[in-house]
């Protein structure tokens, strides 16, 4: 696997973001808002907040394989082993006063002036934010989202839009300024631009051979998560897209001699990202696309109708939908990326991001005639993941996919 040249720019972009956050929290250069990963970030940015995404922070702890060391402290506080391991990792690390942000010069997670959730993904994000709200006596506001939607109906969008409008006054109070309509429109415009660029980057994997892997995408998605509505994110993805398009033109493959293409549904397993990436590469198999990385593509965002379009994009997300639209989505992805099989990660502590528990893999096999694999694991809690079992599972799946290919196609 050859590293993308854009990686240096990615590192610099993320470093600048974290340093600005640190300045805001420690030298009070700007108010700090915490936001859930698919929460109303554009609104916060338009109000001049530096925006911190604790899910990103928890993923960093997971990737650094610190999660299992720190989680027991949160468990001891009564946060169960069965709930979101992002939450228990982050709070455990906070109790130990540890943070990977130290490498960017921060003393720890930036202290929140206000915390803003959207329960469109789960309830755990709110419980997580409430902990910090109590700890710092900071206001916790947010959107209590409808979930499990068959279709995104106008009344649902209106309801969420009203909730977004309702959190503006408390946000203004903390920000110390009024929301400027033009600033919000511009932020939404930039966010949409970023979204389109990120979507275009992911789309390059539809090419054979694909110029990037799911594992690359989980790293390169950083700015798409934390810098929505910021011009520097757009700049970064213009660079990344150019590189990926160049790779595509040159026929350069992320996995040399790509033999199989598979799809990943569910959360990444942060502490095993590299190991899994190497495992698939060993079998000349590219995990070309994922539900996860595509979740930060908000195509509904519209600068002419910022609040409503924010509401709509928060409801159109895969995770907010019922089984039927999810299955239709997966079918579109399978066709777009021409995959040989689907892998579903059953993430032990994240039921809402595990599409394995109501028979979907079996239905997808029936619907598409493609083999599916269920991989047991967790986003952060590595006690729920077995390296040996995962290897056998993946290798067995690759054998199966290879045997299915008509002779002479390789």
């Amino acid at each position, binding site marked *: 696997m050859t590293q993308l040249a854009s990686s240096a720019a990615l590192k610099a972009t993320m470093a600048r973001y974290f340093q600005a956050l640190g300045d805001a929290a420690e030298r009070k250069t700007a108010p700090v808002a915490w936001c859930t990963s698919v929460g109303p970030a554009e609104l916060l940015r338009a109000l001049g907040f530096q925006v911190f995404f604790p899910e990103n922070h928890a993923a960093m702890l997971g990737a650094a394989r610190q999660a*299992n060391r720190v989680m*027991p402290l949160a*468990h*001891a506080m*009564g946060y169960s*082993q069965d709930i979101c391991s992002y939450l228990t990792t982050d709070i455990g690390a906070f109790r130990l006063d540890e943070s990977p942000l130290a490498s960017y010069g921060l003393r720890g997670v930036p202290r929140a002036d206000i915390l803003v959730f959207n329960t469109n993904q789960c309830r755990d994000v709110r419980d997580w934010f409430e902990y910090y709200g109590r700890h710092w006596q900071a206001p916790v506001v947010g959107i209590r989202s409808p979930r499990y939607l068959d279709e995104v109906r106008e009344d649902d969008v209106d309801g969420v839009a009203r909730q977004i409008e309702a959190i503006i006054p408390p946000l203004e109070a903390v920000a110390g300024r009024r929301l400027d309509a033009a600033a919000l429109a511009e932020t939404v415009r930039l966010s949409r631009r970023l979204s389109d660029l990120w979507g275009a980057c992911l789309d390059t994997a539809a090419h054979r051979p694909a110029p990037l892997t799911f594992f690359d995408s989980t790293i390169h998605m950083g700015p798409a998560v934390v810098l929505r509505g910021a011009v520097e994110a757009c700049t970064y993805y213009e660079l990344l897209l150019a590189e990926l398009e160049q790779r595509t033109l040159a026929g350069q493959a992320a996995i040399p001699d790509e033999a199989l293409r598979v799809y990943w549904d569910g959360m990444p397993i942060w502490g095993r990202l590299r190991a899994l990436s190497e495992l698939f590469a060993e079998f000349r198999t590219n995990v070309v696309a994922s539900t996860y990385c595509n979740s930060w593509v908000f195509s509904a965002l519209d600068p002419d109708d910022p609040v409503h379009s924010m509401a709509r994009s928060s409801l159109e997300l895969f995770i907010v939908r019922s089984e039927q639209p999810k299955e239709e989505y997966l079918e579109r992805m399978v066709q777009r990326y021409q995959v040989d099989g689907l892998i579903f990660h059953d993430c032990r502590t994240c039921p809402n991001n595990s599409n394995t528990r109501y028979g979907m893999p079996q239905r997808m096999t029936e619907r598409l005639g493609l083999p599916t694999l269920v991989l047991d694991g967790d986003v952060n809690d590595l*006690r729920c993941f*077995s390296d*040996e*079992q995962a290897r056998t599972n993946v290798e067995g799946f690759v054998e199966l996919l290879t045997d299915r290919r008509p002779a002479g196609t390789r």
Partner: protein
Amino acid sequence: MPATEALAVAGIDVGTEYVKAIVLDGDGRIAGRAAVATRGYFEDRAWEALHSSLEDARMAEADLRALGATGFGSGRVAQATARFSEVACHATGAFHHLGHAMTLVVLGGHDPQVVSVGPDGSLRASRGARSCAMGLGSFLMYAARHLDVHPTRLEELAAAASTAAPVSSYCSVFGSTAILERLREGATREDVAMGSMWSVAERVVEIGGLEPPVVAAGGVAEFFPGVLRGLQALTHVEVRTAPEPMFTAAVGAALQARRS
């Protein structure tokens, strides 16, 4: 039948892995002790343990004023004059030895407990582990088996470790797969032995409530002190061991029987 004029008392703790029996003389000093593996034979092994401890104390059943029973199989001790909960007996036993308030970590074969003991020896609160973290003793037995040592030698192996190989698992029993994986990756048996003990310590940390001073009791504390070192390293809290930790509850049962 226990004699009313006798001064000695005995306590018997019928655990899932071992039956422990203790004889206290009239001054409350330990006069005899015995431990035998349970293996599902509660009645027989309880009798065996009691009589071995009496033999150790050079006494007979007739010399006992009372016999207190505790533990998973306490109901199968026909001669018992009274029965008490394990947690209460551990608290009484540990307080008898140490005489101060403490957080008592009870590590037996099956169900770990964190027990808060007040300055007067009273039992204040106790918390157990989550369901998938039970079977700590069994897990260590499996670990020993994979490392080709007798369970009592696991500690020796761990003491020579340079680092703890990560062997955590959501399920206690399944943790043994992690042991095999680490060995196959080339981790030393010593490091895996230590890692097994640390994984037990992690599950204790999760229970919470480890307010100093922390004292450990139970069979795991007796045979696998490496678990306590792991606990200390993870919490930065000093963990002391109750005297004769395997017999703490048996001592408590004897004392409680004398009072009742």
